[in-house]
């Protein structure tokens, strides 16, 4: 028989797990998009060697599972002298992962900006920084914003794997609770729904941020 009331005493366990997952998500989304933007700019405008390096990074990450990347960073790197806490390893792994995917997405946006835009900006007397920010990146991001949103949500959902290196996230909380009260089904259903809520919340927040970032559309 299902009995969800057995979960009530563990409310704070779930909440602290939820907080950890949210914290990690906010931090790594920001870092990952930053890495992605940088790498996309290199991929689009850099020289031959730097372009190939970024391409290799993107392909390597996109074609291996996140859990293997995580294990390599957390278990593998200490063997060559780089000792990381599970928290550090998680942040690095999530950032590298989102960085690779967002590179590919943002690059698609950048390749949409024609050379004429650069030239027009130059003629209008914008300097390099202004051109990059107002003429290149903002319209490029607007174009790929929905895809980027989806990818950030996918990485957030992927963070469930972090429980395997004992980061005390939402999935860890679910495992802890079901090991205490043997209510596995209930515990996992509730946790899955919390992830679903988190995914919806993220989509909503991204829409709000997008409205601000691309406000120039409504003004014109």
């Amino acid at each position: 028989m299902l009995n969800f009331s057995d979960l009530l005493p563990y409310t704070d366990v779930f909440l602290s797990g939820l907080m950890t997952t949210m914290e990690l998500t906010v931090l790594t989304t920001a870092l990952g998009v930053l890495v992605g933007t940088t790498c996309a700019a290199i991929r689009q405008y850099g020289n031959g060697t730097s372009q190939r390096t970024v391409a290799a990074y993107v392909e390597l990450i996109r074609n291996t599972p996140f859990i293997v990347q995580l294990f390599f960073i957390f278990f593998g790197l200490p063997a060559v002298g780089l000792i990381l806490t599970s928290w550090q390893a998680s942040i690095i792994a999530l950032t590298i992962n989102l960085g690779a995917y967002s590179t590919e997405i943002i690059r698609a946006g950048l390749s949409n900006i024609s050379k004429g835009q650069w030239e027009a900006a130059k003629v209008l007397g914008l300097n390099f920084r202004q051109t990059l920010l107002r003429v290149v990146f903002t319209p490029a991001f607007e174009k790929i914003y929905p895809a980027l949103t989806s990818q950030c949500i996918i990485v957030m959902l992927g963070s469930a794997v972090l429980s395997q290196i004992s980061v005390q996230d939402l999935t860890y909380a679910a495992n802890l609770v079901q090991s205490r009260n043997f209510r596995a089904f209930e515990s996992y259903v509730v946790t899955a729904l919390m992830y679903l809520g988190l995914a919806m919340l993220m989509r909503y927040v991204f829409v709000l941020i997008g409205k601000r970032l691309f406000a120039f559309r409504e003004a014109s």
Partner: protein
Amino acid sequence: MIEFSNWDILRNLLLAAQWTLLLSIAAFIGGTVVALTLTAMRLTRNVVVMRIVRVYVELFQGTPLLMQMFLCFFGLSMIGYEISAWGAAILSLTLFTSAFLVEIWRGCIDTLPKGQWEASRVLGLNFLQTLRHVILPQATKVAFAPTVGFSVQVVKGTALASVIGFVELTKAGTMLNNATFEPFKVFAFVALIYFALCYPLSLCSKYLEKKYHVAR
């Protein structure tokens, strides 16, 4: 203690990779069958049926695959359905794969202009004839590249089956790590084998994308 040479590690990993491959194929076939059914349901244009499909997609795209696996493996057995790790892995990967494939195929069918349905209607084709002679030949062409591209996600998704104790490539990696204490080497090998499985699929998807993009 048994000594493991590089060849021993690689040989054992390759043995386990066969299970990764088998699981991927099973999940992909299962996902395709379910996704085809759901796509057919969507095409009925019945509001209730379409909403059910919508909720299904939202549910399995909006929750972690790991959570779905836990639910299928630990959850189902707790409420009385005994299921093996292999069964739970296939079940959850099928649900996950189908949710994404339905969404991909929806995009492919919806990109076709509505006028094609109307023109077929005017020409006297019924629903099934329109589907078979007009819609599907075009939609499958567009759908090919993203479907192959998604198969990479399926292969990578099978790595999570290691968490519920199914011995595939990743699980074999952690077991070998426990035996050899050489995590750097073992997980690098594991990553390389996944790469060797996934990269050709990625390339194939890119090639198909180019090919059909030009044709359109």
